[in-house]
C-alpha cells in the first residue's frame, strides 16, 4: 500500500525533473515555446495536469486512528455513503427497485449497482491510469534504451543477439506473453497488482522502442562527432550515454508520451479479459467491465459505462494531441 502510494509521486517528480532539465536545451526550449503558443495543446496540458493532480491527491492519505485504514484526500472529499442500488445522474430516487427509496446524497454521475458514487469511482481510476501509463514506460524505456543502444553501437554479435531476443519476443502475441508472465509471477507467489501488471506490460512493450533506438544509434554511430569522440579516446560507455543519448531524446520522449496512452487503453482491454487490474482496485477498465452487462437492462444503466469510457477518451485524447504537437515541435524537418 505504502509503495503503490509512493509511485505516483515519484512518477510526477521524475517527469517534472526530465521536463525541466530538457527545457535548458535550446531545442527543447524552442519546442516548449511552440507548444505554449498552441491553444489546443494548452487545453490538453491543463486537462492532463488535472488528471495527474487527482491521482497525486489520491496517493496522499493518512488515518485518524490506528485501526482505521488510511483515507486519501480524494476519499475524504468525495467519498459518500453508499446508496441502496442504481440511481440515475442527479436523480432523487433509486432505480429498479419495487419500492423506490430517497437518495441520501446528490450524485452528479449517478450510482452503480451497489450504490457507490460513480463520480468518486471515476476519480479513483485516475491514479490507476497514471501508474499503469507511466510506470510501464519507466520500466520499458530503460530496457529498450540499453539493449537498443548496445545493439546499434557495438553491432556484430551483440546486435545479432539483441535482434534475436526481440524477434522472439515480438513473435509471441503480446497479450499471450503478458498472460504467461502474469501467471508465472502469480505462481511464484506474487499477487497480481498494479506493479506486476506494469512489469508485464513493460516487458512486452519494449521491443518496438528497442528497434527504433537501435536504428537511430546505427545512424549516429558513424557520424563525425562520434568519430571525433572516439579519436579523443572517450570510453564507449561515455560516448553512448553522453554523446549519442541526447540525440535520441526527442524520439524517446515522443514515443513515451504516445506509449502512455497506449498503456491506458491496454489496461481496459486486459481488465476486460480478466487479467488486468484486480476488482478491488478502482480503475476505468474495472468500471467498464462491470457496466457492460447493465446496458441491456430496462431502462438502460448507461452512466457508469459512459463516465469510465469518457474518462479514458479524454485523458488518452489529451495525450495523443500533446504527443503529436510535441513531435511537430521537436522535429526540425517539420519547421518552416
Amino acid at each position, binding site marked *: 500500500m505504502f509503495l503503490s502510494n509512493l509511485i505516483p509521486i515519484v512518477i510526477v517528480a521524475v517527469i517534472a525533473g526530465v521536463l525541466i532539465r530538457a527545457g535548458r536545451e535550446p531545442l527543447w526550449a524552442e519546442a516548449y515555446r511552440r507548444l505554449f503558443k498552441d491553444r489546443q495543446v494548452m487545453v490538453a496540458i491543463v486537462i492532463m495536469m488535472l488528471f495527474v493532480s487527482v491521482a497525486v491527491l489520491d496517493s496522499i492519505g493518512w488515518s485518524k486512528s490506528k485501526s482505521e485504514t488510511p483515507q486519501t484526500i480524494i476519499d475524504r472529499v468525495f467519498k459518500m455513503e453508499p446508496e441502496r442500488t442504481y440511481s440515475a445522474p442527479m436523480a432523487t430516487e433509486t432505480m429498479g427497485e419495487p419500492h423506490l427509496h430517497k437518495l441520501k446524497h446528490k450524485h452528479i454521475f449517478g450510482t452503480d449497482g451497489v450504490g457507490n458514487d460513480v463520480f468518486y469511482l471515476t476519480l479513483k481510476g485516475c491514479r490507476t491510469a497514471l501508474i499503469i501509463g507511466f510506470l510501464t514506460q519507466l520500466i520499458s524505456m530503460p530496457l529498450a534504451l540499453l539493449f537498443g543502444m548496445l545493439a546499434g553501437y557495438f553491432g556484430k554479435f551483440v546486435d545479432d543477439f539483441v535482434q*534475436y*531476443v526481440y*524477434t*522472439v*519476443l515480438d*513473435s*509471441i*502475441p*503480446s*497479450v*499471450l*506473453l503478458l*498472460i*504467461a*508472465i502474469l*501467471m*508465472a*509471477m502469480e*505462481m*511464484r507467489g506474487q499477487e497480481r497488482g498494479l506493479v506486476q501488471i506494469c512489469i508485464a506490460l513493460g516487458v512486452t512493450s519494449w521491443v518496438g522502442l528497442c528497434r527504433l533506438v537501435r536504428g537511430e544509434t546505427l545512424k549516429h554511430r558513424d557520424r563525425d562527432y562520434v568519430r571525433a569522440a572516439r579519436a579523443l579516446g572517450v570510453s564507449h560507455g561515455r560516448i553512448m550515454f553522453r554523446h549519442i543519448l541526447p540525440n535520441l531524446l526527442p524520439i524517446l520522449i515522443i514515443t513515451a508520451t504516445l506509449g502512455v*496512452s497506449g498503456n491506458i*487503453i491496454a489496461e*481496459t*482491454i486486459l481488465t*476486460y*479479459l*480478466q*487479467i488486468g487490474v484486480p476488482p478491488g482496485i478502482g480503475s476505468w*477498465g474495472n468500471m*467498464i*467491465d462491470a457496466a*457492460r452487462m447493465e*446496458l*441491456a437492462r430496462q431502462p*438502460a444503466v448507461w452512466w457508469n*459505462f459512459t463516465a469510465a*469510457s469518457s474518462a*479514458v*477518451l479524454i485523458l*488518452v*485524447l489529451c495525450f*495523443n*494531441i500533446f504527443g*503529436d504537437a510535441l513531435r511537430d515541435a521537436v522535429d526540425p524537418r517539420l519547421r518552416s
Partner: protein
Amino acid sequence: MLWYTIRRTLYSIPILIGVTFVTFVLFFLSSTPQQMARHNLTSKNPTPVQINAWIKQHGYDKPKPIQFLNYTKSLFTFNFGKSDVTGQDISERLRKGVVPSTEIGVLMFTASLITNVFFAVYFAYYRGTYVDSFGRLICVIGMSITQVVYIIGAQYVIGIILKLWPITGYHIGLTSWKFVVLPAIAGIISGFGGSVRLYRTFILEEINQDYVRTARAKGVKESKVLFQHVLKNAAIPFITSIVLGIPFLITGSLLIESFFGIPGIGNITVEAMQGQDFSTIRATTFLFTILYIVGAIMTDVAYTFADPRIRLE
C-alpha cells in the same frame, strides 16, 4: 524467390525454438510440478500419491532439458495433448475453432483494409480543406477510444437498439454470416482511426513526387491519380504497416470472439486464460506465433509483387 522463401522459412525455426524456450521457462520453471499438480487435480485436497501420479503422467518428473525437448517435440508435431482443466483433446478443439476464426479474421481484415484505404485516399484528396481537418479530428478521437468501448457500443446500438443481427453465438454453415457481421463491424470501427491516419501520411508523402505532377499535367483525373498512381507507389509502407498490425488483429480476435461468443481460437484462448489452463495457452501461443511468422514471410514476398525493383536474395 522460391529459394528466398525457403530460406526465410528455415530462418524462422530458431525463432520458433526461442519462443518455445520462453514459454517453457515461463510455464514450467516458474512453478514446481507439485504446484501444478495441486492446481490441476480436481479434488480439493489431493493425496501425495495422486500428486505423484499426476506428475509422472504428465512427464514432469524427468530432468528439465528432457522436458524441454519433449515439449518442443510435441509442439512442433502439433501434438498439444489434453487440456489441463477439461481433459479435452486440445488439437481437436482448436481444429473446430479454425473455421469461425478464419471467417471472422478474413472478413475483418479485408473489409477494414478496404475501408481504411478508401478513407485515407478520400481525406488525402481533400487535403487542406475542412473535410481533411474533420477527418483528422475523427481519427484522433477514434484512436483514443478503447476497443472495449467499440465492442460494447456496437453490440448495444446494433444488437439491442436496432435489433439487426443476433448479438452473440455462432452457427456453422450458410447462416453464419449473420453472427459474423456485427463483430466484424466492431472490429473495423475499432481499427479505423489509427490506420486511416497512418495511411493518409503515406499517401501525402507520395503526393509531391514528380510522377504525380506528370500525371496531372497530362490530364489524368485526380481520383485516378490517387487511386492508381499514388496507391501503387505507396504500397510498401502499406504492406509494412499491415504486417505490424497482425498482432493487433490477434488481440482483436481475442476480444471480439470472446465478447460475441464466437467459438474460435481467440475465444478458446480467453477461456483458457480465465480458467488458468496452461496447456491450452501454450498451444494457442504457439499457433499464433506461427501465424505471425507466416505473415512476416508473406510480407517480404508481397514486397516483390508491389515493387518489382525489390529483389529478394
